């Protein structure tokens, strides 16, 4: 189960993570719907690029520009949060959407928790795989904590001051 487009849905993708004795070059990518590490994609591009369904994931220390010009090849791009306090994934997501023009599913994986999801959705994530030990229906509530935001981001092209007419001092009570 994952959260996608603000609803809990079933999901048949698996995330491939390399174990210590596997290398990007040698690992066997199963035939199913797999989200592979960026390094595996880069090492096995020739083999993988003809698949009809493929996903790729970025670690928090990897650069989204490495996917420049090929983001549309993927059905899903995921960004890994090794620890929820590692905020690099937010800028990775922003860059994937705003600079690399990615419009497909953008999924947060790893240490994904309810209280970070509102921010994640704002920078362009539309899918979330909350940590398995947490209740996914509970996590869903994190997407609606706030109904207004001040600044622009991926979800909101206009800052509050361009979007609404805000009361000035003349009308303030």
């Amino acid at each position, binding site marked *: 189960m994952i959260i996608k487009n603000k609803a809990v849905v079933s999901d048949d993708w698996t995330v491939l993570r390399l174990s210590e004795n596997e290398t990007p070059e040698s690992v066997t990518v199963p035939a199913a719907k797999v989200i592979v590490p960026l390094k595996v994609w880069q090492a096995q591009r020739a083999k993988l690029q003809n698949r009809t369904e493929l996903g790729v994931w970025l670690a928090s220390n990897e650069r989204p520009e490495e996917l420049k010009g090929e983001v549309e090849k993927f059905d899903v791009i995921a960004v890994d949060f090794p620890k929820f306090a590692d*905020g690099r994934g937010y800028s990775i997501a922003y860059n994937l959407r705003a600079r690399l023009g990615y419009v497909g599913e953008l999924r947060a994986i790893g240490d994904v928790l309810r209280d970070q999801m509102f921010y994640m959705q704002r920078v362009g994530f539309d899918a979330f795989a909350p940590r398995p030990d947490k209740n996914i229906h509970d996590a869903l509530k994190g997407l609606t904590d706030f*109904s207004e935001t001040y600044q622009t981001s991926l979800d909101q092209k206009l800052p509050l*001051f361009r979007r609404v007419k805000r009361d000035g*001092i003349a009308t303030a009570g």
Partner: protein
Amino acid sequence: MYKYDVYDHQIVNERVAQYRDQVRRRLSDELTEDEFRPLRLQNGLYMQIHAYMLRIAVPYGMLSSTQMRMFAHIARKYDRGYGHFTTRQNLQFNWIKLEETPDLLADLATVEMHGIQTSGNCIRNITSDEYAGVAADEIIDPRPYAEILRQWSTFHPEFAYLPRKFKIAINGAIEDRAAIAVHDIGLSVIKNEQGEIGFRVLVGGGTARTPIIGSEIRDFLPWQHMLTYIESIMRVYNQYGRRDNMYKSRIKILVKAIGIEEFRRQVEADWADIKDGTGTLTVEELNRVAAYFTAPAYETLPANDPGVASYKTENKAFANWLRRNVKPHKIPGYAVVVLSLKKTGVAPGDASAEQMDVVADMADRFSFGELRATHKQNLVLADVKQSDLISLWKEAAEHGMASPNIGLLTDIICCPGADFCTLAFARSIPLSKMISERFDNIDFQHDIGEIELNMSGCVNACGHNHVGHIGVIGVDKKDGGEWYQVSVGGAQGNDAAIGKIIGPSFNFQQMPEVIDRLLQVYVRERLEEELFIDTVRRIGMAPFKEFVYATPIEAEESVDKSAYGFIDKPDNYTVQRKSRF
């Protein structure tokens, strides 16, 4: 000052609701402490030695009397009857119960206040000049920009989990009273030759373990681009700032590692994409916000009040107070009054609930209902009629807030230290008390003149020790004792400098004598009218060092209890250090 509209209210109220639920989940163990910690920190709640501490944001130091009364209410209802004004113009309560924090924050929200982003690795409360709007040397009032930045940075989705905390300061006057050179980003509002308004932008300043003065990344950034340019700085930092070592994770380390030219190149490259985009500020928005910071209804008054002039000749205490605690105002007949929270014997920056109520009343009667918190941990009434000064002084004195020591030796900046803070190596509040007692004589202080003595209980330097003319910092000698290193020559403001350490550390009881010896050298060497810092700059550190270490320093006898009385054996006192907040 700024007033919330429906949007501001809604956002803060939704935050209280979100936080209330987080506390509920923590108390029912749905959230582990590790998961909860960053959530509470981003609402200002720290774990300290004795209890939780709550830090409340005072945006760029501006307070209304209503908000001050709410602080008094909170001090009584949720704390032990007092609060602590910090060097970052915020207010801290020290004895908070986790279960009560949602209600406390709901109370605060009714007066347009919160603890949002006062802690944690996010963009913190924006600080500014405590005399903004009234200073005679002001070029542009920085407060509208500070407010716009406050809103922009509040819950910025991309920058809530930065490598480390991020502090922005903004100054709009000739003299820099906002310490912009020691902030992650320092902005000064300036006018270029064409008369256009913009900012000089510094980046990568800071104190703590790696004290460093910020580097200029832009000499003139037109004001419309303030938000997008800062967004680009943040984005570069968020991606490339170090996350492997918390002591190397501030933006200053990144700027130092790659150099300001390369850092600038990366920022400009990111910015090229969003420059002139929708995040660009509009004239309408600037005007909307600026309208909250217009001048109050000043009366037309004579430039100098005759009553004040005659009273000061007959009352020396009043004359001393006028000299130190009253500052010139740009409007004739008005004055800026600094209420001292540095009475000898009281922890620097502490205010009781009663004092808070008194100050709120004074603000209503004497200063259009507004006040400011200063980075030197005092309070300011910014718009006082000179003809009110005598009655104001009497009231302030009655409530222990008229010590005529602003800018003098006992106007000490001081962090909470080992009395409260889990990170401390040594106490700082009792030390400030001991030093204040030794040099309590006000004539002596006036003779020494302007000097900044700043003290921190550990390397994190919350008490601005690096930029103190004299800086004192608790250090770890691994023996559990309390040891302090002393520096001279630091300064904030336009000639910001990092002080130099004079030599091996001293113990608690030696410290007053160390300060005394530093002052003796100054008195011996000073030229007429020369301030301590200027003497240090002229003759260098060597004569100070030589004299301080020339003969052994006896430990001072009169060590009494901790300022709060809950550490009772200072002589064999050992510092309690827990892990992190």
